[in-house]
């Protein structure tokens, strides 16, 4: 069992493992779904954008 876990971990360490699994295991419709936490992070990024633009308005 321990050995199996080791193999599993080694496989997950392979480059592109997650992207490949998502591509093969999910349909396009499933890939289009966005997690709630990601939506919050997108709004967070937009907040950073607003701050940078505010700063630029201030200095330029």
């Amino acid at each position, binding site marked *: 069992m321990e050995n199996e876990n080791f193999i599993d971990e080694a496989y997950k360490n392979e480059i*592109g493992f997650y*992207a490949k699994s998502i591509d093969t295991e999910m349909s396009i419709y499933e890939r289009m779904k966005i997690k709630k936490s*990601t939506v919050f992070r997108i709004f967070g990024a937009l907040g950073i*954008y607003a701050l940078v*633009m505010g700063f630029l308005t201030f200095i330029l």
Partner: protein
Amino acid sequence: MLELIPLVIVLSFLFETMDSCAGMGFGTGLTPLLFTIGYEPLQVVPILLISEAITGFTSGFFHQEFENVNFKFKRPINQESRVMLNIAIIGCLAILLSVFITYYSVKFDKTIIKTYVAILVLVMGLISMFKLKIKSKNYKPKLLTFFSALAGFNKGIGAGGYGPVVMLGQIFSGIYEKTATAIVSFSEGIVSLVGVSAFVLIPVIQNTSIEIDFLLLPSVFTGGFIAALISPYMVRVIPNKIWRILIPVYALGIGIFVLLKLYVL
């Protein structure tokens, strides 16, 4: 006064979208285009570096969020983080080399070195297209180190084309296209940050001043930032087999564009 230029916003958005989706084109494509429109090097180069530093990190973060890549910086760091750091360190050394070359005024024939990079990108794009049918690819770290060093050398001598060579080099080395894109985006963020620091620190060290015009920054940043949010999502949703075709075709386009810009336009 903050000024937003619609044409620059649209161009930045389009080139950053392709840069974050296909790992290349923001510097190689947008810089000569802005020069053609009539902007000066000091209005363009530092602004693109500042924008690319922010959008590179943003795009890298959202590539991770959309699971195109899995960076892990806690020890032991994983393969993807190691490849990204490898590419970023070589890129940083290249940027410092290019500053050193400029500082000591070492002259290269710009037309010759830019032609060499355009032909290199064209040949790599063509080889990638011929290799489309090969499905199983094993990761070859030595080959990747070679291409990173080659791209770094090109950037160091001022020939550009860092993104296309590193991106296609990763594909040749057996890295999955979606992950390769994410790795290039994040590493370009680090390299651009070092570039910005060089722009700020060199005049301070030399006790001189450099006049950077920030006119384009709000427009380039706006277009680039929106693209950096959308592109990782596009990379996740669109199947990898599309990116496998699109990336070499886009590289061919960039190579042809650079040659046309040098000899025809």
